[in-house]
């Protein structure tokens, strides 16, 4: 196609504006092929069920939209204002699609930072729920929430947009697929490095520094910089706690800490979590909450309403020192059960803490080992537990929902609230085993609590390090000592997880529940009993692990994560495809074919294609015939072919409107037609050819069922020169394009073949496409097959080889004509493939004798 223009310049009698028109025509056809390629991708993706990345959706949707626009704009260039109505049609669809596919929610313009005192639930969309609730908590519990400020979504976007960071991150994330741990680690490392090394825009850095300086009352002030991740629509994910919190940060370190918290959005476990839950990366914005550091003597979490075996109670967990150890699974916290109504401690279970965390001298934290005698002493007194629980109850009463509250008690004994989150999921659970054990089944582990329900069977794999994570085979029962949130990255591939330590309230448990992976935590010495390679059955519902495969425990296993999780990429593709894929445009010959009737991109694509071909013949049928450039090819095959000669493609002759193959000079056309008319082929339907009604008939194609009604044999068009062919052909219910050049300079030679459609359902049409793909691949073509669309090309071959290739394409076009009807199974397809290779081109199998 590319040298059409140049060739046309040599034409003996230049047609006014024709060069420009041909260039546009060429671009429309090119864009048409590209756009239909994207549509085929969308169809195939929807049918396949393979995991989808956000970038896949934007690539397909942006691709088809831009290519449709190319068609529209080139049609405009060719025809002036004639189809002006198409533009608003296109714009409307484009705007809708962009809104749906790019999901850039309107921002509340609040600036880069907002003081916590001014933040409330109304600003959750701008600052994340964590900051929003903490701001509200400050008002509910005056003096019990440290001063601070929120860094907003606006700040996050400014940071990510600076220096193209967002697009570099998107590119690095692109190859990551769910369950591919190595690629996830690689992308994570790259992105975190990118972000930690990225420039914070000056205005943003200045705003953060000013806010931090405003809270400083002396040289010793330190801050905690916490994540407040926010999903599209303001909903915070329960995963939010997995992101990094930077503790004990001096005022001049806040900007750097901010960057590091943002980077933690791309930890391997966070990436895995989003993939597993089906969140699109751009949907999740990372806000931060910066508060004055509380130097904690003890800290932990309180669940204001939590199901226990004796009803809904308040659960408080406490560790010595900073609270991180309470949620990261590294310590077994002391646990208090409290009753809200009576305001009493019902139960206290001392934990086991080997080391505690405290602020280091200048910045950051350090771990201090506890003496043997201190390890089992409860981290708080009953009175302190009640004091903290009371803060939680007051918050719950005002906010009206069960809460997960992180708290600390400083060295002066004052209680603080550091973080507040909703607790809907856990509140709906019941505590204790929900299923009895299987009698006589060999029990390996009988201690532990159900952190996530269900049962599963698999070989044991012990995980303690990142290297273990990389090595862990799919379907393993993971055993680990600490319920480290880092192992969340493995959960989508795990059958179940068993940890010696860990709490049902910890992050790993939360993720396991969301992914519906059975998890048994606090199983004490499980790692010593479950040896690597052992086949075991974990029944988290019965809080037990059996040796071997115990069917009775597996029969009511929880559904896998894949069955229950939301797949918003697929949902998105589904909804945008309704504006892209369907072809609603009626036949040109029927009424109502106009730009105003175009309601999908596919309609516009089809309309443009048709209108462009017509525009090529704008001079009118007679004028073209008078100029001796348009002929009807007389041929025994059922293709009504019109030949448009750009000059030299046909032998000079007197005008009578018809031409035979002998009079065709165009080399690729001759070879193709020789293949198509090979006497060994048996074409199914022959129809008389005629030039009548040329202007009302149109080049058309179909790959949808409504077109089945259309009659056979609408005209095909061949655009030719001595060495060039562009054939847009419609045979029956499919559409084929051949674009080829054969000359003596073999670097310039190429042939591309494209075939789409058919009269049967998508399955049989796709089978035919695969058959074509195989047959052409065997002839040396590069091929690509998606749904019922096949693209094949061959290039840079000597002219004689190109002749053979074009002959093969012609032969194939005849062979596969109507064949989709016969291809009821892959076995039948194989029979036809074998017949073709055996040279039995007349083979009709059972098609003719059903």
């Amino acid at each position: 196609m590319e040298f059409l223009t140049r060739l046309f310049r040599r034409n003996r009698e230049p047609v006014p504006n024709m060069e420009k028109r041909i260039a546009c025509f060429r671009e429309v056809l090119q864009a048409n092929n590209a756009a239909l390629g994207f549509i085929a991708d969308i169809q195939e993706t929807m049918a396949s069920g393979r995991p989808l990345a956000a970038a896949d959706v934007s690539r397909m949707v942006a691709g088809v939209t831009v290519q449709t626009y190319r068609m529209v704009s080139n049609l405009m260039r060719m025809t002036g204002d004639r189809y002006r109505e198409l533009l608003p049609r296109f714009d409307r669809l484009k705007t809708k699609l962009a809104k749906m596919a790019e999901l850039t929610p309107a921002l509340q313009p609040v600036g880069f930072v907002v003081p916590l005192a001014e933040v409330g639930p109304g600003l959750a969309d701008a600052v994340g729920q964590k900051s929003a609730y903490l701001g509200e908590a400050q008002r509910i519990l005056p003096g019990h929430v440290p001063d601070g400020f929120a860094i907003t979504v606006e700040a996050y976007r400014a940071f990510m947009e600076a220096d193209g960071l967002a697009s570099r991150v998107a590119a690095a994330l692109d190859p990551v697929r769910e369950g591919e741990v190595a690629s996830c680690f690689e992308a994570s490392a790259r992105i975190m490095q990118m972000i930690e090394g990225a420039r914070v825009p000056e205005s943003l850095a200045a705003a953060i520094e000013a806010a931090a300086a405003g809270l400083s009352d002396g040289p010793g002030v330190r801050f905690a910089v916490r994540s407040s991740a926010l999903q599209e629509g303001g909903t915070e994910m329960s995963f939010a706690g997995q992101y990094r919190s930077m503790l004990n940060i001096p005022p001049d370190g806040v900007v750097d800490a901010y960057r590091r918290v943002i980077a933690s959005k791309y930890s391997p476990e966070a990436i895995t979590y989003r993939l597993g839950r089906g969140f699109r990366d751009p949907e999740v914005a990372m806000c931060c909450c910066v508060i004055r550091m509380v130097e904690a003597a003890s800290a932990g979490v309180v669940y204001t309403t939590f199901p226990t075996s004796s009803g809904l109670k308040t659960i408080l967990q406490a560790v010595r020192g900073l609270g991180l150890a309470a949620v990261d699974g590294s310590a077994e916290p002391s646990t208090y059960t409290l009753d809200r109504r009576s305001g009493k401690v019902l139960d206290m279970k001392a934990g086991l803490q080997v080391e505690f965390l405290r602020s280091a001298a200048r910045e950051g934290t350090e771990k201090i080992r506890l003496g043997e005698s201190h390890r089992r002493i409860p981290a708080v007194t009953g009175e302190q537990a009640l004091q903290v629980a009371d803060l939680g109850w007051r918050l719950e009463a005002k906010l009206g929902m069960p809460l997960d509250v992180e708290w600390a008690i400083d060295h002066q004994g004052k209680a603080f609230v550091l973080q507040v989150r909703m607790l809907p999921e856990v509140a709906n659970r019941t505590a204790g085993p929900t299923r009895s054990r299987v009698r006589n089944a060999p029990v390996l582990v009988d201690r532990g609590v159900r952190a996530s329900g269900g049962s599963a069977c698999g070989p044991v794999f012990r995980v303690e390090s990142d290297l273990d994570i990389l090595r862990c085979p799919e379907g393993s029962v993971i055993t680990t000592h600490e319920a480290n949130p880092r192992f969340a990255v493995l959960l989508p591939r795990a059958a179940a997880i068993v940890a010696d330590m860990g709490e049902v309230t910890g992050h790993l448990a939360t993720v396991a529940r969301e992914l519906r992976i059975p998890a048994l935590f606090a199983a004490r010495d499980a790692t010593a009993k479950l040896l690597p390679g052992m086949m075991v059955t974990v029944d988290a519902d019965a809080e037990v692990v059996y040796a071997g495969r115990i069917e009775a425990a597996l029969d009511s296993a929880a559904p896998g994560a894949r069955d229950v999780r939301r797949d918003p990429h697929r949902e998105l593709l589904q909804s945008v495809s309704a504006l892209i894929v369907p072809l609603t445009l009626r036949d040109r010959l029927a009424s109502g074919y106009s730009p105003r009737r175009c309601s999908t991109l596919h309609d516009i694509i089809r309309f443009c294609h048709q209108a462009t071909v017509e525009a090529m013949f704008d001079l009118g049928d007679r004028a073209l015939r008078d100029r001796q450039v348009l002929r009807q090819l007389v041929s025994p095959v059922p293709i009504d072919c019109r030949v448009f000669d750009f000059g030299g493609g046909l032998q000079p002759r007197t005008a009578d409107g018809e031409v035979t193959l002998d009079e065709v000079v165009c080399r690729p056309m001759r070879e193709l037609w020789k293949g198509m008319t090979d006497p060994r082929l048996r074409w199914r339907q022959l129809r008389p050819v005629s030039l009548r009604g040329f202007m009302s008939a149109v080049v058309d194609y179909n790959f949808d069922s409504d077109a089945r009604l259309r009659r056979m044999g609408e005209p095909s068009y061949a655009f030719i020169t001595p060495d060039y062919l562009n054939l847009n052909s419609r045979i029956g219910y499919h559409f084929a394009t051949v674009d080829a050049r054969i000359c003596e300079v073999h670097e310039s030679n190429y042939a591309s073949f494209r075939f789409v459609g058919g009269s049967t359902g998508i399955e049989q049409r796709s089978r035919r496409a695969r058959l074509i793909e195989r047959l052409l691949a065997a002839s040396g073509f590069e091929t690509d097959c998606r749904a019922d669309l096949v693209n094949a090309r061959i290039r840079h071959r000597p002219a004689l080889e190109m002749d053979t290739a074009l002959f093969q394409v012609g032969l194939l076009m005849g062979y596969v004509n109507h064949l989709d009807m016969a291809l009821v199974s892959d076995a039948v397809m194989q029979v036809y493939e074998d017949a073709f290779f055996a040279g039995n081109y007349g083979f009709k199998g059972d098609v003719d004798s059903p």
Partner: protein
Amino acid sequence: MADLRLLLVDDEVEFLEPMAARLTRRNVSCVTAGSGEEALKLLVAGHFDCAVVDVKMPGIDGLELLRRMRWNHPDVPVVLLTGHASIELGVQGMELGAFDYLMKPVDLDELLDTVRRAVQQPTMRPGRDNA
């Protein structure tokens, strides 16, 4: 002797250099620019058949470069190349006169096909329409 002289503009060196090397092996002469600003300087200094421009760049981004090129270098066609597909930016680019909008990772043959068609596109070259 190279048959095409191409200006490759992208702020990502890890993309730019290997792409230039691959194109050079295909007998295309490549000059690289790491930013829109650098590209504008190179355009003043030398002749190019076509520019392949990344959309997202710090400073003068791909669309701004395209806008300025349509004004100052209307005879150099622009093919946009992006790592971050966007409907709005894609269509905006086409409206500004880009020849095509391709998405990374791009097939080298596809890129070259597009560049060659862009170079031959008469409508992109005012004054040569009816040559």
